């Protein structure tokens, strides 16, 4: 194929982002202008980057180019291959949706907040994300990675007056730097082995790495990328930081920023580190299972709508890791076909999760925008004033619960098939792990469905629960268009899953050296199969159409009585008790109570009830109820760690004597040591 203008489109897009950043900053005194500039230029840039990604994927062969910077070891080198194109495509789709949404969302910032500064950070965040996915030089990658972390920090702490936001921002920036630190060390190991900072040189050099070196590099990269992705137990920053950011930013953070961790794993584990041993894959798989199950269990206990969604991001990252881990195991066991299917499952879920999580966060943002609260216990009945938002949120909820015929189901189905194939493809007792992981995936899916019944029903159904719900309004049109775009994507990726599968072929060819997309599609392009001669088949298109076809006779059947007697509206029966009010409705806390009791070993719930009464204890005047669950990881893992670091720091204080003589002595000793060890060769 002729060379397509991938590089030019990509550069134009970057230019548009950069222009947007400074245009916003320049117009900070004129909020309305800043809003138009911010959204207009970001949309143009997202469209250009989207084109670049599509062109890059169509091109088939990687496009590489490098611009020297004059600084040793550092060059602006880019590789626009299948992996980069895929992630940049997700980014462009989300950036377009979020930008359109922001046009309406930012209106209320006018006169209150600095839209110019917001626009600057927003554009730089998107710019750095684009570069992270396309960088082919370790230093360029790390610089973009840092810029991404810093701008995200700025956006997370945008509502800086709130102490909770400041705390969350601080936690985020600390964890981000720890992850950058691990990545630095990991890259130093690879650079030392290959003598170059270009990604392309790592793969060849990795073949000469000793197994202990390889293991050390794997652990460093895994730690670094897992912190960014929010894998349990490195997740604590995620449920703190994602809810406090402005909602359009939360959508980007959960939709694509945490996916940079997944991108890094795919790039480094499959490309740069050589063939990793089986224990590495097992570790990824097991942490994936832990993240999925614990993530959804913690999500169930939340009644803050946005924090609930943040915990679900942890769950879905876990599902993605199950696929990635299986792919790593299959590769070393010599089953490239299965590895490719597992990788497709992981990447498809990455795409799906990006879309429905972004959609759900935007929906939550509309609710917050309209009611001013994230607390589900104060919401309710929003389906009447906000029907379109409710519909979009419902589609997102069905998709994230992995229910057919939407997109979440397709990737979970592929993950199931990979896990089942793992039983036959590996030997020994370890293969029991795969079906157990599969059953844990089933548990995760069912709990996620329970959680989204709660999230949707408590927020949107029944009677309004608080004063906030009385003057609510539907979201402005631009916000609805942003959500509608993602809703459509959920439906199309679900029903038309087989059309989108060939996208992944280029990626599996690049990372594993073979294409399996054709094997996955049978039955006139409608049926998805597990890729092997046996396995299973499924067709979301037929399921979707089947459900629709069956709907017609059912409606006919049900209309027999309705024709004669009609449908009457009446008060809710409620076992004959009159006067149903919002006070005796079921709450989010009540809904998850059975699970809180069943998994009490994990949650360690604590509750306190104080009743105030006049005469008889049977007629309390008021009851104070308090209930909380123990944040296990924070208390058991991070608090001791923090104590240890503080104690060490106090010990180290002795070194910092405040005397200039002592400092001169340190410099002198360091110089001697460097001369002794550093300049040996």
């Amino acid at each position: 194929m002729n060379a397509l203008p991938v590089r030019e489109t990509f550069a134009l897009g970057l230019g548009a982002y950069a222009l947007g950043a400074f245009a916003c900053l320049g117009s900070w005194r004129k909020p309305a202008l800043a809003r138009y500039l911010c959204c207009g230029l970001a949309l143009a840039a997202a469209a250009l980057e989207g084109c670049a990604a599509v062109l890059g994927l169509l091109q088939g062969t990687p496009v590489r180019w490098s611009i020297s910077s004059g600084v040793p070891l550092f060059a602006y080198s880019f590789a626009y291959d299948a992996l980069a194109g895929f992630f940049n495509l997700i980014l462009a789709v989300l950036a377009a949706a979020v930008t359109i949404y922001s046009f309406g969302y930012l209106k209320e910032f006018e006169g209150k907040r600095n839209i110019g500064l917001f626009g600057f950070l927003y554009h730089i965040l998107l710019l750095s994300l684009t570069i992270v996915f396309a960088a082919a030089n370790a230093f360029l990658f790390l610089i973009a990675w840092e810029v991404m972390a810093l701008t995200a920090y700025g956006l997370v702490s945008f509502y800086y007056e709130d102490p909770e936001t400041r705390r969350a921002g601080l936690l985020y920036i600390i964890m981000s730097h720890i992850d950058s630190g691990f990545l630095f060390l990991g890259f130093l190991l690879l650079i030392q082995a290959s003598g170059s900072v270009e990604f392309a040189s790592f793969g060849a050099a990795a073949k000469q790495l000793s197994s202990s070196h390889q293991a050390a590099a794997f652990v460093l990269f895994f730690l670094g990328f897992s912190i960014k992705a929010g894998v349990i137990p490195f997740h604590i920053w995620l449920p703190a930081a994602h809810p406090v950011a402005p909602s359009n930013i939360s959508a980007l953070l959960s939709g694509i920023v945490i996916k940079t961790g997944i991108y890094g794993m795919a790039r480094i584990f499959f490309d740069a580190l050589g063939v990793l041993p089986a224990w590495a894959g097992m570790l990824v798989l097991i942490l994936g299972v832990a993240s999925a199950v614990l993530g959804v269990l913690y999500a169930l206990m939340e009644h803050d709508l946005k924090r609930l969604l943040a915990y679900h991001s942890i769950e879905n990252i876990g599902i993605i890791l199950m696929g990635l881990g299986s792919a790593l195991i299959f590769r070393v066991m010599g089953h490239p076909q299965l590895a490719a299917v597992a990788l497709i499952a992981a990447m498809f879920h990455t795409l799906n999760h990006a879309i429905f999580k972004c959609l759900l966060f935007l929906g939550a943002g509309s609710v917050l925008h309209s009611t001013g609260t994230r607390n589900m216990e104060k919401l309710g009945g929003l389906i009447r004033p906000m029907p379109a938002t409710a519909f979009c949120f419902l589609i997102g909820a069905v998709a994230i619960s992995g229910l057919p015929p939407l997109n979440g189901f397709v990737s979970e189905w592929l993950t199931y098939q990979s896990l089942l194939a793992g039983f036959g493809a590996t030997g020994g007792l370890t293969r029991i792990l795969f079906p157990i992981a599969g059953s844990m995936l089933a548990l995760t899916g069912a709990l996620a469905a329970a959680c989204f019944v709660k999230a949707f029903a408590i927020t949107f159904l029944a009677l309004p629960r608080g004063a906030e719900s009385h003057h609510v309004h539907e979201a402005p049109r631009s916000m609805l268009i942003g959500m509608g775009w993602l809703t459509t994507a959920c439906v199309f990726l679900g029903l038309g899953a087989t059309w989108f599968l060939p996208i992944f072929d280029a990626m599996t060819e690049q990372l594993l050296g073979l294409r399996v997309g054709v094997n996955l599609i049978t039955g006139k392009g409608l049926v998805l199969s597990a890729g092997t001669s046996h396995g299973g088949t499924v067709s979301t298109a037929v399921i979707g159409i089947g459900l629709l076809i069956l709907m017609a006779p059912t409606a006919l059947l049900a209309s027999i009585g309705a024709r004669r007697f009609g449908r009457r509206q009446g008060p809710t029966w409620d076992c004959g008790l009159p006067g149903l009010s919002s006070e005796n409705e079921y709450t989010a806390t009540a809904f998850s109570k059975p699970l809180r009791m069943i998994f009490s070993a994990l949650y360690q719930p604590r509750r306190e009830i104080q009743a105030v009464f006049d005469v008889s204890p049977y007629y309390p005047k008021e009851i104070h109820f308090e209930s909380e669950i123990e944040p296990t990881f924070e208390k058991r893992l991070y608090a001791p760690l923090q104590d240890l670091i503080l104690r060490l720091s106090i010990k180290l204080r002795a070194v910092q004597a405040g005397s200039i003589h002592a400092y001169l002595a340190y410099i002198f000793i360091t110089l001697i040591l460097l001369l002794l060890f550093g300049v040996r060769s």
Partner: protein
Amino acid sequence: MIVILVKSGLQLLLLLLVAPLISGIIKTLKARLQTRRGPDVLQPYRDILKLLRKGMVIPETASWIFSAAPYVVFVTAALVGLMIPMTATDAPLSLFGGVIAAVYVLALGRFFLALGGLDTGSPFGGLGSSREMTISAIAEPAMMLAIFTVALSANSTNLSEMARFAESQSWRFLAPSQMLAFAGLFIVLIAETGRIPVDNPATHLELTMIHEAMILEYSGPNLALIEWGASIKQLILMTLLVNTFFPFGLSSNWTVSGLGLGLFFYLLKLLLLACCIVLVETTNAKLRLFRVPELLAVAFILGALALISTFLF
């Protein structure tokens, strides 16, 4: 295409007709075992017909979700019924969805039913939805583990393939892994169909109820759809048990004689399984809600043991 549609139509008809019959048989047998006379086996048909011809009351607090839920429940159950082999090994839609899809399509129906329960604002609805989602979530891993055991030996998650494989190995159901998986799935069947000791299908106003609490506000045709859908779901789970573990008499083709014989054996097997369910329901007391997870943990462990024994024996 036409062939698939005709087969689907036939199986759909069978599904719709047999499902209430099985509910009726279970009710009658249970009554006889408790030395009551009880309703006759045709009572569920009369209930459904009566409800379909009635008007209905929609609570003022409810939205369109409340009215949509019965349709989703009924349609999802009917669709899954077409993926599963009933009288012939070749299910009409088995190519388009295996056992994983079947479980997930049923979950879609449950998702909407739980939303419908919460939509009215009645605390009973919320209570039922909460318990239904909890118990199904705990039952899910046990169910999948037992199903995986069967799917792994058949090398397919396709239900027709699973039945065909079981047919090719005639005495395979005596293998320890199969028996353990069957026991695990039987417990899940009890839990998923809301039977004693997990839920009591005979109660209508008790604080212990699960399914009935969720559908308390439904009336008329909506209620008929939900009840019919629930009996179809029960039939599907029973069929899954009888036809993947004991595929005797399944017709290998869609000829009239084959199907007739298949139908005879199918009903016989269902009758036997119904007897087992009735025995369990009559000889057990209902468990406290928070003892149910222990029962389902037993099912999970049975599934895990089944899995381990697949490569011990």
